[in-house]
């Protein structure tokens, strides 16, 4: 009997589902080796099908997306119960990802923006989502939206992490290989190399020993020289504080690393570590001049916690201050 495998998505964009397809023809080898028992985005299975399975009968579940409503929380618990090896697939499940930036707001401020204030909105009756609605003797229910976006491991026990936005084909392939061969690293491992991206960057040799920057630029403001270290050109590249394994695809496309592979195992708070590295490069000892240089980074939370706010030490903006 082939091992049973499940895929599921929670709060995410769908890119992680596409990443599975990015395996291209190799996806056929995967399909040949495993029995996919649950994959709502591609195949018609229902929640009740999963509920009917014996506990622990799924060998591996690849769950992508953060957890930000009660339905996602329930599915995470259900799949955890049915699964032997649960993998947090991609930056959102691992660290909170882009949806994790919702932790700078809360349910009320997000709902007000989306259902009341957005200029692109047509909502003349001012309808807001509710968790329960009665109509004509019928009761309709919607999942409860949380104030705080959570990582998968803040909700259920996670066995392994596949980093990336989305995880790259090589990382996925290696993980599936490890699963099928049973040669798995210790529980809790991130299935990618535990060194910084600069280590595998093709521009590594052009990174100066000591970086002193007189200004920071956004990628849209400058022409980035394709042959030189991006950070050395004053464009914040988070490669120095980000795990490698992606093949430096963004840098190969002449764009800075934005940190989607998350931190290495030595770092507890990815954003704080990146901030520390970048800020100390400001080439001045004068308070006002440092301020001018760092003004080139207008949104530190958005830049340094782009993928990891829910996994950070503070997890979210203070509720009272939202």
């Amino acid at each position, binding site marked *: 009997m082939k091992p049973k495998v499940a895929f599921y998505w929670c709060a995410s964009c769908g890119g992680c589902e596409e990443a599975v397809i990015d395996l291209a023809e190799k996806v056929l080898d995967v399909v040949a080796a495993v029995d996919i028992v649950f994959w709502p985005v591609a195949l018609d299975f229902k929640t009740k099908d999963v509920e009917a399975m014996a506990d622990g009968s799924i060998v591996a579940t690849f769950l992508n997306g953060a*957890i930000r409503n009660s339905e996602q*929380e329930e599915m995470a618990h259900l799949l955890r119960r049915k699964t032997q090896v649960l993998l947090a697939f991609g930056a959102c499940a691992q660290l909170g990802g882009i949806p994790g930036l919702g932790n*700078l707001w809360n349910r009320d401020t997000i709902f007000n923006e989306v259902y009341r204030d957005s200029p692109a909105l047509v909502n003349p009756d001012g309808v807001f989502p509710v968790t329960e609605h009665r109509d004509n003797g019928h009761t309709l229910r919607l999942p409860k939206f*949380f104030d*705080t976006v*959570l990582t998968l491991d*803040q*909700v259920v026990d996670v066995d392994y992490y596949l980093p990336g936005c989305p995880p790259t084909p090589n990382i996925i392939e290696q993980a599936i290989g490890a699963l099928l061969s049973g040669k798995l690293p210790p529980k809790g491992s991130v299935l990618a190399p535990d060194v910084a991206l600069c280590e595998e960057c093709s521009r590594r040799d052009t990174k100066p020993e000591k970086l002193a920057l007189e200004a920071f630029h956004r990628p849209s403001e400058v022409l980035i020289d394709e042959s030189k270290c991006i950070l050395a050109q004053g464009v914040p590249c988070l490669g120095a504080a980000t795990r490698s394994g992606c093949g430096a695809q963004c840098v190969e496309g002449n764009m800075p690393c934005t940190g989607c592979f998350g931190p290495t195992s030595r*770092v*507890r*708070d990815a*954003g*704080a*570590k990146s*901030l*520390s590295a*970048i*800020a*100390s*490069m*400001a080439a001045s*000892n004068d*308070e006002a001049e*440092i*301020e001018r240089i*760092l003004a080139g*980074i207008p*949104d*530190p*939370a958005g830049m*340094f916690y782009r993928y990891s706010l829910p996994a*950070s*030490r*503070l*997890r*979210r*903006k*203070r*509720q*009272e*201050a*939202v």
Partner: protein
Amino acid sequence: MPEPFEPRIVAFFCNWCTYLAADLAGTSRLRYAPNARVIRVMCSGRIDPQFVLDAFARGADGVLIGGCHPGDCHYQEGNYKCLRRFQLLKRLASQMGIEDDRLRLEWISASEGERVRTVMNDMVEKIRALGPLGRRKEVEEEAVVA
């Protein structure tokens, strides 16, 4: 009855200047607010922004960083690195809803015991007015109930 709020401050003092100043304040028998837990580090340049956020996450109401005056760093430029990180960290903290007065950087030399007293008393008063940061409770509750 709930206990009155006593601000809890984590103070990172550099080994060569501010820690000695705090020592001097002690040997001079200066009295000041006892609200800080002082952590001695070799240099203010050693203070990783992770330490500061960790302190807030674990229940500190304020974080005070003390280093040598500009130009006086025992390691030449550790305090400048601290200053650069501090500026950006301060803006990040503000985005996370942490008020300005809760995170403070002071240059205090080994001879300025009096300055330790002034800064400490001032910071405690300002944070007393702000009230508890309440981070630890918030983080713990989220972990359980989402």
